[in-house]
């Protein structure tokens, strides 16, 4: 019976390991494809790489041209603003005071960010919260149920349920 319990804990260890691997892959994907910098972070550490910048389009700064794929605006961070030359699709979604994620490159020479794609704020905190609140209680619930079942089996076996019992007071 002890062996069965050891196997049970090993199995659950494997379940925990697989869950952690998926969580790690999800986090890596978040870092690679979803997470972004603020304008302040980008201006403090300018990078030539393609990055995502999250900020608010400063009120009154958005200028749209006749070319539907071009726009100019200032992306506001906490303290600093980043001038953005946007050349890409979905310029209709750009509005004053809207929080957006702009993908593109920063050119330190001109001090401008050349954006090529706009996307919605990731809200990954909500996604993480939903999965944590869904998966972890499910695992705990299942673990406790399986453990209880095994303990009940042990109790039933030890109680020798189907055998006639000899009680202490019968012996007297």
């Amino acid at each position: 019976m002890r062996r069965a319990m050891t196997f049970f804990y090993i199995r659950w260890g494997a379940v925990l390991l697989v869950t952690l691997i998926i969580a790690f892959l999800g986090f890596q994907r978040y870092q690679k494809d979803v997470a972004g910098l603020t304008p302040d972070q980008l201006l403090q550490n300018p990078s030539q790489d393609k990055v995502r910048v999250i900020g608010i389009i400063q009120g009154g700064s958005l200028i749209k041209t006749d070319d539907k794929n071009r726009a100019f605006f200032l992306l506001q961070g906490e303290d600093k603003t980043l001038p953005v030359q946007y050349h890409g699709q979905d310029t209709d979604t750009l509005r004053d005071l809207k929080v957006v994620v702009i993908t593109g490159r920063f050119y330190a020479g001109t001090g401008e960010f050349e954006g090529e794609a706009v996307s919605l704020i990731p809200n990954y905190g909500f996604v993480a919260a939903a999965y944590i609140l869904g998966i972890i209680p499910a695992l705990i619930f299942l673990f406790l149920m399986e453990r209880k079942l095994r303990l009940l089996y042990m109790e039933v076996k030890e109680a020798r349920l189907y055998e006639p019992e000899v009680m202490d007071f019968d012996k007297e």
Partner: protein
Amino acid sequence: MRRLEGWFGLAAAIFLVVGLYMALVSSPPDYYQGETVRIMYIHVPFAQTSLLAYLVLFLGSLWYLWKKDPVVDNLSHAAAGVGVFFTVGELLTGSIWGKPAWNTWWTWDARLTSAFVLLLILVAYLMLRMFMDDQEKEARYAAILAIIGFVDLPIVYFSVEWWRTLHQPLSVSQRGLAISQELLIPLIIMSVGFYLLFTYMIMIRTRMLYLEHLLEAKKGRLLSQAHL
């Protein structure tokens, strides 16, 4: 039966691992909702499984009233307990999705309210089973409550069609598919994983209830021998 149970557990684990990988890593974000659409892959299976749990409870209750089979009564009891878990999961994940989508954690929308009522019915069922002494009466009254409570099930399912609600309408209906294939495949995989997990859970819980009754019976026999 135990071997079958193990297969269900293994199949659930495989589907959920693949489903979670697709939901969190490989599937694309939605055009309108962005990354928050990923909550759908866990919220919708929770909601579907909650309805499935109640359906099992309803059918089990009908069967019990007809045949008086204690094994089916244990199965219904198990479905109610597991159903509470899935309904709470549905409400929690839905609330988390509601905040970025509707800018509110909760609203007394027809779908949300009817799902909450379903949870109350399940809790009432479990409370009834907890506080009655006569096991046969307990099972009979609980079955009647479950059958009456079944009225809520079509309300939960069709509420988004019958009333103008904040909740989105059915994605799969007679009107066709209102969801792209890229999002549908991970959703189906997660849903199948949840159905298998539910089956595995009620198999375990049914056996637990059976063993608990066995132990209770034994204790009862010992007490009767003691002539107290």
